[in-house]
């Protein structure tokens, strides 16, 4: 089946670009759902992740908790909560937040853990308190990895709000299910293309943010390709040892 021309006709049809069911309105809904989910999930996950990374306590629990959450099939959790708690925005939001927690927690603790111990010791030795170390040293250095966690969470959340339109919700998934109900492949394919574009744009934006948040000192101190350099110096050392 080749539906590209139909899908593009659907995408270019002006009637699909206006009103409450139009592509701009659905995209806005999708973005608002995604944003609300990410904000709620960050409020829960980041303090936990930072605490685990900073203190080094509870790492095992955090890893296992994240792993267990990951194994939960999202669609099942989504529909189970909707069956228990009823329709509306709340139940799917709970499911989405649960889904976004593992990458956010993992990003936060992995980011803090990756900070060089010597840097932290240096910060302590000049008299910084634990909080100062966290907010002035660990957090800025960990930020690219933390944003990386937000990036994965965002992609999952965009994808899953699409699936969640199985429930009577707005968002871009509407086109897929409405199109499926009447076997309108052009609408399903057109809607899918819009979701894919949205996800790729979001991914690109986060990729740029990830670069921008690298502290300037880190950029200046970084060699162009650490790995190559390291291996060359290793070659050099082993060579000189042999020669000696």
């Amino acid at each position, binding site marked *: 089946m080749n539906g590209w021309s139909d899908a593009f006709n659907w995408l270019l049809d002006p009637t699909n670009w206006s009103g409450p069911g139009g592509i701009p309105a659905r995209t806005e809904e999708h973005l608002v759902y995604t944003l609300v989910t990410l904000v709620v999930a960050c409020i829960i996950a980041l303090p936990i992740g930072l605490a685990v990374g900073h203190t080094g306590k509870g790492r095992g629990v955090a890893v296992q908790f994240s792993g267990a959450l990951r194994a939960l099939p999202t669609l099942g959790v989504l529909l*189970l909560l909707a069956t228990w708690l009823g329709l509306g925005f709340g139940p799917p939001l709970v499911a989405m937040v649960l889904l976004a927690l*593992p990458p956010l927690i*993992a990003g936060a603790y992995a980011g803090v853990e990756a900070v060089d111990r010597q840097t932290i010791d240096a910060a302590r030795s000049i008299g910084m308190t634990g909080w100062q170390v966290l907010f002035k040293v660990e957090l800025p250095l960990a930020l690219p990895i933390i944003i990386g966690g937000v990036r994965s969470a965002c*992609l999952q959340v*965009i994808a899953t709000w699409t*699936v969640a339109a*199985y429930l009577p919700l707005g968002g871009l998934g509407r086109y897929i299910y409405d199109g*499926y109900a009447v076997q309108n*492949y052009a609408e399903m394919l057109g809607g899918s293309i819009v979701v894919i574009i949205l996800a790729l744009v979001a991914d690109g934006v986060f990729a740029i943010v990830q670069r921008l948040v690298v502290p300037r000192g880190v950029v200046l101190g970084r060699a162009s390709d650490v790995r*190559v350099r390291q291996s060359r110096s290793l070659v050099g050392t082993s060579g000189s040892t042999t020669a000696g």
Partner: protein
Amino acid sequence: MNWLIENAGQIWQLTLIHAGLSVPPIIVGLVLSVPIGWLANRYRASRGTVLAIVGILYAVPSLPLFLVLPSIIGTKVLDPANVVISLSIYAVAIMVRTASDAFAAVDVDVLLAATAVGFSTWRRFWSVELPLAGPVLLSGIRVVSVSTISLVSVGSVIGVPSLGYFFLRGFQVGFPLEIGVGIVGTIVIAVVFDLILAGLGRVLMPWTHRRSRRTRVAIRDETPELVEAA
């Protein structure tokens, strides 16, 4: 309880179908990502490009991919192949990054030593690089396994049978137990697959099992990166 007994046959059948749909993406993910990851690591110029491509592939949402795929490869919309191929794409996307990191982590000195005692590139790959990269590859494929099994159920909304069928029907008739059976079934498959993979890891890489805690800690330290990539 009655529902469980009456539907035991269907539960079992859909569990098998669900597991069956999950196997090919896991295998494809491992088999394709090892050479791609190795090449990406060996020719550093290609590393950035390869990782960028798999990053983009991974960013494509699942349900839209299930629907776009038929018009690219010419399958029917209801064909389970769409789900299997889409999930294989994700598996490769996750595993290529892991594989490239795993090969990058192999100590350069060890490779030089292997070459020095006369190993060809081919033999060095099979007897030095692959075994040393093995534990990281294993932890990557375990992540792939869990996420694949969880995503298979999404295919049910476009009519591809799996345990996801229970989610949809349970929701439509307002019967939480049925949804619960689907969730538990999915988790059971994930746990069984994980045990199988861990077991295979022990058989194929007995040294990871025998060695002291130090190695395990090192292997576990790789997990955050995998988690981040996922």
